[in-house]
């Protein structure tokens, strides 16, 4: 019998060792190795635009450059004019509301609120020339700004009025065009909301040349990916969208487009990808380089010193108070909030009446555990107190940016009533003449600043009873976080009862034995 047991033990040991050594050989390239090798390849430009005659004749107006581009790239103009970068709106289906034409053009946010009436302050980031008012011709291809996105010289710059700065050498820039770089996209997308990292929290100027610690993908000392490596743009239709203005689960740029659904060697980790988005574990914190704006209180705006607007800064140089905008708080290395998200959203639209007793959601991201499309994602929630008309119950669009004296712009006149009247006139909606403020919230999915593997979340940061990252995520039984309190109470009771019984019985035995011995 002993021999058989020994043989069995040795046999099973041998099987374990054999299985272990045949499992995965270290020499096999993993999907990640293949990806790294693919993106390490340098792409050669297919054409040297400096050799094109049409780009050598002196340009006097930026529109001439555009026409030169379109003379070869004949159909690209139509593509751009069908894009959100140009239209600042598109047809979207919002669950519960139906199809609307929405976008940056007409959706409100809780930062600088909205573009209507303020285009002269916003047009710097429109992919066209001269979008300063609603008269802009969206069908005129010569107003497309090709260079804003395709300048590879690093010298292109736009200024007020939505035109190139006077110092820009259009010939030089036109001869050095190519694939968009981080510097092209970042010029607008890193500074949304009127300053570095104000809006997203995960997109900011440190991402121009990020370290590997900040972003494993775009690290200039690492994979050095450009934005468009993930946000591919077939026919100028960008993949990827931000749910501050988008509503539909389509055209998204995802981790899975490169990494697939089963990126880990460990099957148990891969199982998580069904319900947990990659970002949840792999972006442990956002704003890891520079601070992002967490709150914005418009109600304190308008204080003047010697009749003039002023600003206050914190030790890091972040603006904490501005007469034109109010009070801000900032944070770095922020732990995200976590929500279920199925890729669809709805928005506060101009004209919606709100309940001012609780924070108004400027956007709502849908999803719950039972939704097969929903996964847990990390989000930044930006909280604000912003202008509101208690008479009409509307969150209103104020006119902020002024062009001429007396046009009602808040940033010149510091009069909310004037700003509300002028802003809502542009929006085509009433203003009751009563002015107030309402708390609002806005949810921004966190998708960038993917950290090196070693910094990703560990199991016990979610699977724990205390301070679980997912403490607020409902609808799912999370081992380690959750328990059935009845079963646990009964179980503990049973263990205590048995333990106590053993102690009492054992003591009684010891005492009775001693008594009998001495008797």
């Amino acid at each position, binding site marked *: *019998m*002993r021999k*058989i*047991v020994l043989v069995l033990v040795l046999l099973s040991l041998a099987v374990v060792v054999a299985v272990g050594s045949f499992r995965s050989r270290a020499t096999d390239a993993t999907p990640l190795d293949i990806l790294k090798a693919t993106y390490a390849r340098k792409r050669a430009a297919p054409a040297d635009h400096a050799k094109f005659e049409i780009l050598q004749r002196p340009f006097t107006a930026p529109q001439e450059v555009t026409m030169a581009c379109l003379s070869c790239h004949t159909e690209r103009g139509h593509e751009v004019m069908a894009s959100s970068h140009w239209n600042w709106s598109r047809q979207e289906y919002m669950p519960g509301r139906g199809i609307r034409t929405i976008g940056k053009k007409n959706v409100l946010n809780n930062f600088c609120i909205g573009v209507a009436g303020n285009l002269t302050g916003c047009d710097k980031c429109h992919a066209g020339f001269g979008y300063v008012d609603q008269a802009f011709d969206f069908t005129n291809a010569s107003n497309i700004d090709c260079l804003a996105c395709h300048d590879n010289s690093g010298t292109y710059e736009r200024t007020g009025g939505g035109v190139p700065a006077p110092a820009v050498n259009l010939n030089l820039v036109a001869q050095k065009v190519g694939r968009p770089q981080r510097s092209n996209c970042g010029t607008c997308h890193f500074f949304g909301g009127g300053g570095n990292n104000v809006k997203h929290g995960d997109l900011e100027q440190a991402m121009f040349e990020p370290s590997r610690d900040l972003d494993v993908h775009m690290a200039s000392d690492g994979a050095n990916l450009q934005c468009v490596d993930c946000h591919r743009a077939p026919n100028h239709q960008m993949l990827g969208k931000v749910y501050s203005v988008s509503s539909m689960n389509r055209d998204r740029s995802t981790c899975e487009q490169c990494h697939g*659904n*089963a990126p880990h060697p460990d099957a*148990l980790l*891969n*199982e998580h*990808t*069904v*319900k947990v988005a990659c970002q949840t574990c792999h972006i442990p914190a956002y704003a890891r380089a520079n601070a992002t704006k967490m709150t914005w209180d418009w109600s304190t705006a308008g204080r003047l010193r010697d009749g003039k607007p002023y600003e206050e800064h914190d030790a890091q140089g972040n603006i904490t108070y501005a007469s034109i905008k109010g009070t801000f708080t900032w944070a770095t290395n922020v732990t995200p909030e976590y929500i279920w998200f199925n890729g669809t959203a709805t928005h506060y639209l101009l004209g919606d009446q709100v309940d001012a007793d609780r924070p108004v959601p400027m956007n709502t991201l849908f999803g719950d*555990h*039972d939704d*097969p499309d929903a996964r847990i994602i990390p989000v930044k929630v930006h909280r604000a107190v912003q202008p509101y008309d208690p008479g009409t119950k509307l969150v209103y669009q104020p006119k902020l940016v002024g062009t001429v004296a007396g046009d009602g712009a808040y940033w010149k006149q510091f009069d909310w009533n004037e700003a509300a009247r002028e802003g809502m006139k542009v929006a085509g909606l009433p203003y009751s003449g009563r002015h107030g403020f309402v708390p609002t919230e806005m949810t921004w999915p966190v998708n960038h600043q993917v950290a090196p593997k070693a910094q990703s979340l*560990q*199991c*016990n940061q979610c*699977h*724990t*009873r205390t301070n679980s990252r997912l403490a607020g995520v409902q609808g*799912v*039984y999370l*081992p*380690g*976080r*959750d*328990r*059935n309190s009845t*079963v*646990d109470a*009964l*179980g*503990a009771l*049973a*263990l205590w009862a*048995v*333990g106590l*019984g*053993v102690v009492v*019985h*054992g003591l*009684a*035995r010891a005492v*009775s*034995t001693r008594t*009998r011995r001495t008797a």
Partner: protein
Amino acid sequence: MSPREVYVYKGFERFWHWTQALLILFLALTGFEIHGSFSFLGFEQAVRYHRVAAIVLMVLIVFAAFWHLTTDEWRQYLPTLTNLRAQAEYYLVGVFRGAPHPTRKTVLSKLNPLQKLVYLQLKLLVIPVVVVSGVLYLVYRYPARGGMTGLSVDGLETIAVVHTAGAFLLVAFLIAHVYLITTGTTLTSNLRAMITGYEELHDDVAAPVSTPPPAPASPATANAPAR
């Protein structure tokens, strides 16, 4: 009839018993860590080793079941009402008075009626519940998506709660079991028997006796009968 050394527990039986004991102890430790009761190996390692130990235990159970069936040892667990009351009374009263064990232990009947009952419940109820819920836990899949197949269940909650309840019962059994092995002829005679296989037994009568045993040969053994 003087007591003599009898080979009670066979080699495989002891191997099975001790391996199972270690595995259950280890599974309880890692399992309750996963449950969030305490921190020991860290959640990740606890999960990893809990899964490995669970698979080893299931393999062991298959071998043990085979052994029980082929050796007819499964008959040891057939429940009986005979002496059940006497055995309960012994643990509640007799043990404090130095009364003799009401059930005689033999090679063909190693278990007293209470043990038969408890072990049978363990084997037919508690362990199957823990194993089945554990297997569901292991192969549990969300509604299959993204090429991952397997069992589709809408949530872990029921599985996890049943598994936890079973674990509590097993630990409760473990505590009582560890204590009760000290109630043999001497404090350590049962422990020694399960380690060496040999135990001092009085005779080799096949069935438990329902009538009191014949008068002991000497007063010394009367106070410490085999259980």
